[in-house]
């Protein structure tokens, strides 16, 4: 039976609403069992610092006792586990030293929602996934802009052009404090690059691009020749007959070296296209194809391993940090799954 797109859309919409409702009900049930789920606890730590003038008139800040005259106090929140919170409550009911952090708890729930929204793409494209995708792209773009400003423009350009202003503004430990005339070169190249955005300045923008490409090519060429050609060729020049320290013939080491040398030569033979792949060259090339296939297979296996590890890490986040189903680190001192299993074992 053929179902048109117009017929499918409302049905798919209902399917997604149903799925999210089921998840919401399951989460609500889980939240009602035991001590609940998905809370983040923090403890505020205060440290007082006082200025100390040392040699050469340098001012450094040293840790001092709280309440010291002229001291500045910095507060920071340290993560605490649910187990630590429970212990503190048992010792002193209503204590405020360890408390639930609302903003961090909301962050945890948002992270769980985004994780589930990304997973939902496996079932099909949907608004939750699209929303999450947009958030990721927006946050990444914003983050990179901030990084570029604070890690490149300020310390590498402005600090060289206007050191006194930068020191007073945002880099109190900036040393040297000299105006560097050569910093005008990257500034000029940067302005020329930006001129690509205007129709009249396109030809001007090619010069900094040429500079970047030329520098990069030069850097890469030297390192590639050294590490990927010379060193790799050297690594292939192996003795085919290996003799051990005691003078005996090392069978496995010899076989391994032979395999490496044969593998390299046969794989290279496959890529020699100026000679027809017939006779000895053809046979070597076919063996080379096998080596290539094994290489691709191992690369695929490694990729699968990496992806499963990342998936496992996300599941651990959902099960341990959000749902509080398990507690492998012993942070909470109790788990729902462990409690259920022990109940079943006791019953049987």
């Amino acid at each position, binding site marked *: 039976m053929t179902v048109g797109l117009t017929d499918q859309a409302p049905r798919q919409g209902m399917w997604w609403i149903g799925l999210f409702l089921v998840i919401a009900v399951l989460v609500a049930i889980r939240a009602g069992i035991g001590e609940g789920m998905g809370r983040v606890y923090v403890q505020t730590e205060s440290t007082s610092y006082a200025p100390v003038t040392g040699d050469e008139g340098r001012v450094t800040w040293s840790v001092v006792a709280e309440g010291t005259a002229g001291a500045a106090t910095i507060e920071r929140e340290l993560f605490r586990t649910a187990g630590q919170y429970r212990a503190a409550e048992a010792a002193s009911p209503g204590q405020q030293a360890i408390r639930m952090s609302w903003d961090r708890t909301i962050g945890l729930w948002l992270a769980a929602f985004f994780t589930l929204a990304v997973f939902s793409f*496996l*079932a099909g494209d949907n608004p939750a996934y699209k929303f999450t995708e947009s958030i990721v792209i927006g946050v990444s773009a914003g*983050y*990179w802009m901030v*990084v*570029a400003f604070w*890690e*490149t423009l300020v310390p*590498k350009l402005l600090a060289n052009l206007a050191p006194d202003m930068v020191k007073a503004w945002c*880099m*109190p*430990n900036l*040393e040297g404090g000299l105006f560097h005339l050569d910093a005008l070169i990257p500034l000029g190249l940067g302005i020329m690059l930006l001129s690509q955005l205007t129709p009249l300045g396109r030809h001007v923008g090619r010069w900094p691009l040429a500079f970047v490409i030329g520098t990069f090519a030069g*850097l*890469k060429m030297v*390192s*590639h020749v*050294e*590490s*990927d050609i010379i*060193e*790799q060729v*050297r*690594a292939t020049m192996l003795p085919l007959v290996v003799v051990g320290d005691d003078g005996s013939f090392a069978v496995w080491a010899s076989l391994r070296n032979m395999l490496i040398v044969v593998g390299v030569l046969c794989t290279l033979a496959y890529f020699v296209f100026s000679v027809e792949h017939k006779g000895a060259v053809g046979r070597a090339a076919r063996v080379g194809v096998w080596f290539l296939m094994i*290489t691709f297979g*191992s*690369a695929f296996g*490694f*990729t*699968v*391993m*990496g*992806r*499963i*590890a*990342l*998936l*496992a*890490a*996300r*599941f*651990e986040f959902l*099960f*341990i940090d959000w749902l509080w*189903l*398990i*507690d*492998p*680190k*012993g942070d909470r001192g109790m*788990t729902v*799954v*462990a409690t259920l*299993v022990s109940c079943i074992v006791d019953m049987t």
Partner: protein
Amino acid sequence: MSGGLDRRWIYLAMMLAVALPILWNGVTGKTFPESPTPPSQACFDAIEALPEGSRVLVSFDYDPASEGELAPMATSFMRHLMHKRLKPVVIALWPLGPTKAEETISNVIKADFPDRVSGRDFVNLGFQTGNEGVLKVIGTDFRKQFPVDRSGTPVDRLPIMEGITKAGDFPLVITISAGYPGGKEWVQYVSSSNPGLVLLAGVTGVQASQVYSYYPGQLRGMLAAIKGAAEYEALVSAAIDGDGVTPPRYTEARRRMAPQLFGHLLLIALIVAGNAMYFAQRERKAVAS
């Protein structure tokens, strides 16, 4: 399998293959035994060979996207270095690397080695932009790229940095890398130009096959993906804890090996089944024609 099995059943099967072992591990606390492969053993041996007090350059070249694979490696490296009373000098070529380094320092050094002092026994010098440009410069002038530590203290005032002028002054360099810039660039720009320098790399699964060709010549040892992390974690645990109980935060990589086993078994079964169906269909078509 067009018109046959909906691919979403495969996703569901993979979800169960990965999720159930995690729950099983969470309930029982059991992990599979690990026997080290030569690249992981080489990492362990390289650190063991260093005399006490040696300074080790550790580069955190990853971000949260690869944390599942690389954070256990970082934790094990840091624990091993601290146990051997070595002094890690931490840098990062990825902008979020310093944050990951701070997490590792907090989880390992501040939790289990509280007597170690920042600036004397370890230091986090933060991130520097420039990718391989940074590596090229630290090969000749380390302080030009990292003039201050993460809190803004000039490195000239840090005891741990005394006598360090270039990357080659470190007897050992470790990179924990998720891609570009990472293990490959460290080999190309640092290892190759400093023949005496020992370089270790912990890499993701995707990167492992690219970096493997550098082992054991340009890379003394490497941890390939979560399997390498689990092997190294087991070696470090055996050396430090012996027959005693390893704290759970130091078993993270081994806990992720049970999902690996069942995930891979499922994938192998699917590949075998897919091929069997393909050949069966081809046979049927040949008979029909």
